[in-house]
C-alpha cells in the first residue's frame, strides 16, 4: 500500500478515536452528574414514612383520575387485570377499558363478568380534533359503577388511548400499558406531586419507576415467596439492572433541580393533565412514534403558551411489567423502542438545538440524540475500530486501552454503582447471593449484554430507513 494511503487511513482512525474519546468522557461526566443528583434526592427521601400519603385518600383533596386501559386479545388475563385495577387504593377514579378490536373472547369475558349494559346514545365527544377509531359500542358495568368498557375497531394502542381520552370524565387521565401491573397505591403516589404543586406551578404529566414483573426478582421476600422459587436467567437479571440504572440516571437525575428537561414518561404508566393533552390533539397514532413524541409536543406547547407546565418523575416503584425472556423478544422490543425514539425525534426535529425551547432544545434533546439514539452506532463502531485497529497494528495501542477502559467505566461500573445504590437504599430484602449476583452481572455488562443490546438498537435504526419487518401497533408495556 502506498505510504500516502496508509497515512490517510491512520489519520482517519486517529481522528475517530479522538472523537470517541471526547464523546465517552462527556457521556461519563453527564451520567455521573445525573447519577449523583439522583442519589442525593433518593438519600433524602428514601426513609420518609408512608403516612405522608394518608391524606391522598380523602376524596375532597385528591383530583379524580380516569384510568385508560387499552386491551387487545387479552382473553386469558383481562378479568385478572380489571380485578386488580378495581382494588386500586384512591379516592375517586374511573376505569375505562378500551377493547381494541380483539379477535378472541376478550369482550365476551368482560360482558360475562361485569354485567355490561350498552349505552345507546353516549355522546362521542371529539374534543381532540383528531380522527379516532370507529367505536362499535360503549358499555357501563352494572356491577361496578366506575367501570366503562368501549368496544372499538382495531386502531392500535395510541388510537385506543385517544378514544379513552374522549370518553373520560375526570381532569387527569392515566395511560396504562398492555402488560402493566399497577401497585395498589400507584395512583396515590403518582398524584402526590400534582397535589403538592405550588401556585403557578402546573404538573402536566407524571411518571414513575417501573419494576420487572417476571418472577418478581429479587423482591420475592416482600411478595411472600422465597427467592429460591424462581431462578432468573442472566438476560432477565441484566434487564433488571438496566431498569435500575434508567430509573436512577434518566428518570430521577433528569428531574432534579426543577430543570424541566425530562423527555419521556413511562409507556407502562403515566398520568397526564387532560386539558393539556386535548390542547395538543392527543396521541400521535403513527406507529413510528411513541410516548416520547407526546411528551415533546407537551413541552413544545407549554413553551409556546409561555406557561410553566412541568413533567415529573417520582422515585417510588408504582407498577411492574413483564420484560422479554428470550433474545428474539428482546430484539423485537429494543428495535421497536429505538424506532420510536428515532421517529419521535424526527417528528419534532424543529426543537433540536433550538434555543427557543430552552434546556429542552439545547440540552435534553441533543443528549437523547447523541447518547440514546446514536450511542449504539458509536459504541459498536468504536469496538470494531478498536479490534481491527489493534489487529492491523495501525493505531496507538495505548489510546485503544484508554478507550477500552472508558467503555468499561461508561457501561459496567456505572451500572454496578446504580445497582449497589439500589440495594443499599431499597426497602426490599435482597439476599447475600442476590447482592453478589447483581454486582457481578453489572460488572460484566460491557462484555456481552451492552454490545448485543446495541446491535438490536442499530437494527431498529435500520428499520427506520426501511430495512426489515416492523411489528404491530400494540407495544408491550
Amino acid at each position, binding site marked *: *500500500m502506498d*505510504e500516502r494511503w*496508509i497515512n490517510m487511513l*491512520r*489519520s482517519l482512525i*486517529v*481522528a475517530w478515536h*479522538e472523537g470517541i*474519546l471526547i464523546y465517552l468522557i462527556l457521556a461519563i461526566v453527564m451520567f455521573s452528574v445525573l447519577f449523583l443528583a439522583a442519589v442525593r434526592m433518593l438519600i*433524602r*427521601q*428514601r*426513609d*420518609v*414514612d408512608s*403516612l*405522608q400519603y394518608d391524606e391522598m385518600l380523602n376524596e*375532597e*383533596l385528591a383530583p379524580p383520575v380516569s384510568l385508560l386501559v387499552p386491551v387487545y386479545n387479552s382473553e386469558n388475563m383481562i378479568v385478572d387485570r380489571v380485578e386488580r385495577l378495581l382494588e386500586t387504593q384512591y379516592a375517586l377514579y374511573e376505569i375505562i377499558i378500551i377493547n381494541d378490536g380483539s379477535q378472541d373472547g376478550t369482550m365476551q369475558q368482560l360482558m360475562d363478568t361485569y354485567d355490561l*349494559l350498552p*349505552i345507546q*346514545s*353516549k*355522546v362521542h*365527544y371529539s374534543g381532540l380534533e383528531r380522527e379516532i377509531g370507529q367505536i362499535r359500542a360503549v358499555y*357501563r358495568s*352494572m356491577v361496578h*359503577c366506575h367501570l366503562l368498557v368501549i368496544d372499538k375497531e382495531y386502531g392500535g394502542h395510541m388510537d385506543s388511548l385517544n378514544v379513552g381520552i374522549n370518553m373520560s370524565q375526570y381532569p387527569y387521565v392515566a395511560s396504562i400499558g398492555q402488560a402493566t401491573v399497577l401497585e395498589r397505591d400507584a395512583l396515590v403516589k403518582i398524584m402526590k406531586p400534582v*397535589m*403538592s*404543586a*405550588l*401556585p403557578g406551578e402546573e404538573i402536566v404529566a407524571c411518571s414513575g419507576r417501573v419494576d420487572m414483573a417476571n418472577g418478581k426478582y429479587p423482591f420475592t421476600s416482600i411478595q411472600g415467596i422465597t427467592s429460591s422459587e424462581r431462578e432468573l436467567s442472566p438476560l432477565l437479571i441484566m434487564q433488571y439492572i438496566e431498569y435500575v440504572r434508567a430509573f436512577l440516571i434518566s428518570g430521577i437525575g433528569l428531574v432534579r433541580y426543577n430543570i424541566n428537561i425530562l423527555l419521556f414518561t413511562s409507556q407502562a404508566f403515566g398520568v397526564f393533565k387532560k386539558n393539556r393533552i386535548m390542547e395538543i390533539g392527543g396521541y400521535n397514532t403513527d406507529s413510528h412514534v411513541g410516548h416520547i413524541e407526546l411528551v415533546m409536543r407537551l413541552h413544545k406547547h407549554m413553551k409556546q403558551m409561555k406557561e410553566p407546565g412541568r413533567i415529573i418523575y417520582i422515585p417510588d416503584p408504582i407498577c411492574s411489567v413483564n420484560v422479554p425472556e428470550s433474545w428474539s423478544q428482546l430484539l423485537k422490543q429494543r428495535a421497536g423502542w429505538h424506532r420510536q425514539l428515532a421517529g419521535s425525534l424526527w417528528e419534532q426535529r424543529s426543537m433540536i438545538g433550538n434555543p427557543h425551547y430552552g434546556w429542552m432544545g439545547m440540552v435534553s434533546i441533543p443528549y437523547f440524540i447523541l447518547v440514546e439514539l446514536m450511542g449504539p452506532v458509536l459504541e459498536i463502531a468504536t469496538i470494531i475500530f478498536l479490534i481491527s485497529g489493534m489487529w*492491523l*497494528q*495501525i*493505531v*496507538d*495501542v*495505548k*489510546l485503544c*486501552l*484508554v478507550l477500552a*477502559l*472508558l467503555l*468499561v*467505566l461508561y457501561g459496567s*461500573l456505572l451500572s*454496578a*454503582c446504580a445497582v*449497589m445504590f439500589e*440495594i*443499599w437504599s431499597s426497602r426490599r*430484602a*435482597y439476599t*447475600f447471593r442476590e*447482592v*453478589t449476583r447483581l*454486582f457481578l452481572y453489572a*460488572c460484566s455488562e460491557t462484555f456481552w449484554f451492552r454490545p448485543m443490546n446495541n446491535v438490536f438498537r442499530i437494527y431498529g435504526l435500520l428499520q427506520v430507513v426501511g430495512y426489515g419487518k416492523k411489528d404491530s401497533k400494540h407495544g408491550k408495556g
Partner: protein
Amino acid sequence: MNDHVRMNVHLIGGQNAGWFEGKTVLLLQLSSIICGSVLVLLLCAYGYILWDKHAARRRVVVQAKWLHEFNAEGEGSALRNYFDTGELDSALLNMSGDQQAVLQGILLQRLSQGPREMELARIRFLSWRVFESSYRTRLGSRKWSVRVNTLLYVEQFHMIELLPKLEDILRSASCTPLERFIILRMYARTGYMRVLKELLRKDTLLSDSQYLQILLPLTDEMWLKLMEHFKELSYQVQCTFIDALRIRDEQTDNAISLLEALILGGDAELRTRSLQALAHVEKKDKRLLRQLLLVWNEQGDERPRSERLVVARLMGSIREEAFVPLLKRLMGDPSFQIRQEAANSLARYEQAVEELRYTASEHPDKYARQIAEETLERKQYGRKMD
C-alpha cells in the same frame, strides 16, 4: 523488513498526531486510576452492603421477638395489660431502641384502625411517656427524613406537649416547606392558635391542597376568627378558604353572607369558587339568586368557562323554574363539560323528562340535542341501577 512493516511498527507505541499528541500515556494513567478507584469503591460498597444487610436481618429477628412479646396473650404482656387496665408497667417505660420501634408500629396500626375514645387516650398517653425524649432528640436531627418522620408521628400521637418545640423548628432557617406544612397541620388539628398567625402570613409557600389540609381540621372558634380576617388573608388562602367552606359544608349566616358577597364581586376565581360552595348550601337568599339570574342573562356567555360550569351546577342544586331556559342555552355551550353539566342539572328538575325530550328533538343546536338524548338514557339507566 519492508517499508510497510516498518511504518506499522513505527505507529505502535505512541500517539504522534492530533489533539492528544504525546498525552496518551497520561490519559491511560488517568483512566486506569479512575476505573481502579471506582472498582475499589464498589468493592467497599459491596462489603458494607453485606454487613448492613446482616445487621438489618439481626434487627428484624430481634424486633420479631419483641412484636411477639407485645402481642402475647394472657398476663405476660405489659402492653395488653396497659390497654385492658390502664396501668402502666415500668417495663413499658424503660425500652430499648428496637422495642420502641416495635411499639411505635403497633400503636400506629391501632390508630389507623380508628380506636375508641378510651383507647385513643391511652395510646396518646403511652406514646408521650415512651417516645417523648427520643422524639425531642430526633426533631433536632440533621437528617431530613428523620425529622419529617418524627413530625408525622408527633402529629399521629397528638403530642401537644411538643408544640413549643415545634415553634422553634418553625422559626429556624433550616425548616423545609414540608416540615412547615406538617407543623401547621398539627397546629390546626390540636387547636393551637398560632396557626392563625401563620395563615395570615403572606410568604408561606404551600400548595392549595396543603392549605386545605390545614384549614379543614380547624376548630369552630379558629374558623370564625379566620372568617373575620378574610380580607387580610393572601389571595391563595382566600381561594382555599372558600373551598374549605364548601367541603366543611358551612351553613352559618356568616359563611353564607361571605359567599353571597363574593359571587357579586369582581374577581372571577373567587366568584367561581363561591358559586361552587353556594351550590351546596341549603338556605339561599331568593333575592340574591334573582340578582344572579339577572347578571347571567346579561353577561353569562362572556363569563369564563369554569364559572359557566359552576353556574350550570348551581342551577341544578337551586332548581328555580326561571333557570330552565338558561340551562337549555348552556346545553349548547361550546364546552362539552358545560353541556353535560347543564344537562345533568336539568335532569334534576321535576319537569326534566319533558324538557329533555323537547330539547332532544327541537333544540337548534346539534350538541344540545345529543346531550339531551344521552341524559335521558342515563336517567333511565340510573333507575335500573337502583
